[in-house]
């Protein structure tokens, strides 16, 4: 459930995402995409290799490369893949025979925009939540609603308590003043 819960068609053989380690220079979108959407994508497509290459070059490009393969060709996912890297060591591999690579420039693109582009290019199918998941989501939403009401109630009580305390402190300081002047 949630953004990124997509079933990829079997033609998608692997995914490569490259962006810089830090945010400035338009690398925020791909990072958010990696943090928020990629885990869901990986959960629903455990067999598709997803390689993230974070480079040290802040000026460098930010790209999302999708690899498609024609039916009947051997699946490159069976072969060893370059590991994800945080030092820019895993550049996007060249497509193997029978494979086609599509590169999307994601520099300065919002993560939601990246996701919609991704869906458009791969024609991935949204995973629909099951009935129990819907019920659970409803329960959580209900809990949040009630929490919000309670929060307002509590804030009122707390403010009242603080006012009371401030009044008491004021009175006490006045009493102390009396005592001081009495002596």
């Amino acid at each position: 459930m949630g953004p990124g819960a997509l079933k990829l068609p079997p033609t998608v053989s692997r995914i490569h995402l490259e962006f810089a380690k830090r945010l400035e220079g338009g690398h925020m979108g791909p990072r958010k995409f990696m943090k928020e959407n990629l885990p869901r994508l990986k959960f629903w497509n455990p067999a598709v290799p997803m390689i993230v290459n974070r480079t040290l070059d802040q000026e460098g490009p930010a790209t999302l490369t999708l690899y498609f393969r024609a039916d009947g060709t051997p699946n490159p996912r069976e072969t060893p893949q370059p590991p994800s890297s945080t030092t820019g060591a895993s550049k996007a591999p060249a497509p193997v025979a029978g494979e086609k690579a599509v590169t999307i420039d994601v520099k300065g693109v919002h993560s939601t925009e990246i996701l919609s582009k991704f869906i458009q290019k791969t024609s991935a199918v949204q995973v629909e939540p099951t009935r129990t998941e819907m019920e659970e989501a409803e329960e959580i939403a209900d809990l949040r609603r009630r929490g919000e009401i309670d929060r307002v109630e509590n804030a009122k009580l707390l403010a009242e308590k603080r006012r009371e305390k401030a009044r008491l402190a004021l009175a006490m300081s006045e009493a102390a003043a009396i005592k001081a002047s009495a002596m």
Partner: protein
Amino acid sequence: MASTTQCIASLARLSLAPPARRTAVSTIPSFLLPGAISSSVRYAGGGGGGMRSKRVKKKKTHKTYRSPDLRPMEQYSLCDAMRYLRAFEVGNPPSSVKYDVAVKFKSGKNGPILRDRIRLPFEVKSDTRIAVICPEDHPMRTEALDLGAVAVGEESIFQSIRDGNFDFNKLICHVDSEPALKKANVARILGPRGLMPNKRFNTITYDVKKAMDDMVGATEFRERDRVVRVAIGQLGFTPKMLAENLKVLMEKLKQDADAIADTGHTKVLEEVVLGSTHGPGFSLDGKLNPTLDGVPIEHLQSPM
């Protein structure tokens, strides 16, 4: 509370009189003022002073760790837990990510603890590179090389240490080479890195083979607060490999638990939780195969 406030406020109103009229102020009995103030102090303390009950409730102590009822909890098969964890670890360099397992026991707070060393069938830490110091013409030499030592020798190793270009991270010394090691003047380089061989740690030994066997791929574990935590696999492991490692670990733990059972302290397995370096923990139900919708076990074996 309000009544006190009012009381003090009325006193305060009295105090508004100019200081010249001291007589007016002094009409208030002196015992009344400090009394009023101190009582209000107690009040602010929240039922303090005389209102506090003298009987302090003694905190209940437990001789055993408390165990929650696990029946209503969600538990996962190994493959399901792996699927979640692999999703959580997407994009992280696989070399930095390990599966770890926390094995919780029903146990008393005192008594012996489980502490042992285990060799898992699939090594978790694969970067152990051992060098063996032994005389150049020693029969141990070929044996050590066969066992996978990256460097064997005496003066050659010392020289590489002095030059600073050595690529081992464990060092074993044969007893015959001990005088040479002492003379070689390398302790200053090896000591800070924890590499200096020492009889106490069995790194100066006659039985180089045993020392190497112990070093390669052995994982130490100990129980802390009735939980044993061990790194159980690399992220790239298949479910079968992980299951194999887990099985060996559980057998070892059972042996160890049985070994201390005759001291009167029993340890009963309560829960096994699989986690990973950046992921959450998943309580395992002891099954292997996936139960979630049609993701076969093979899909969890592909590269990340």
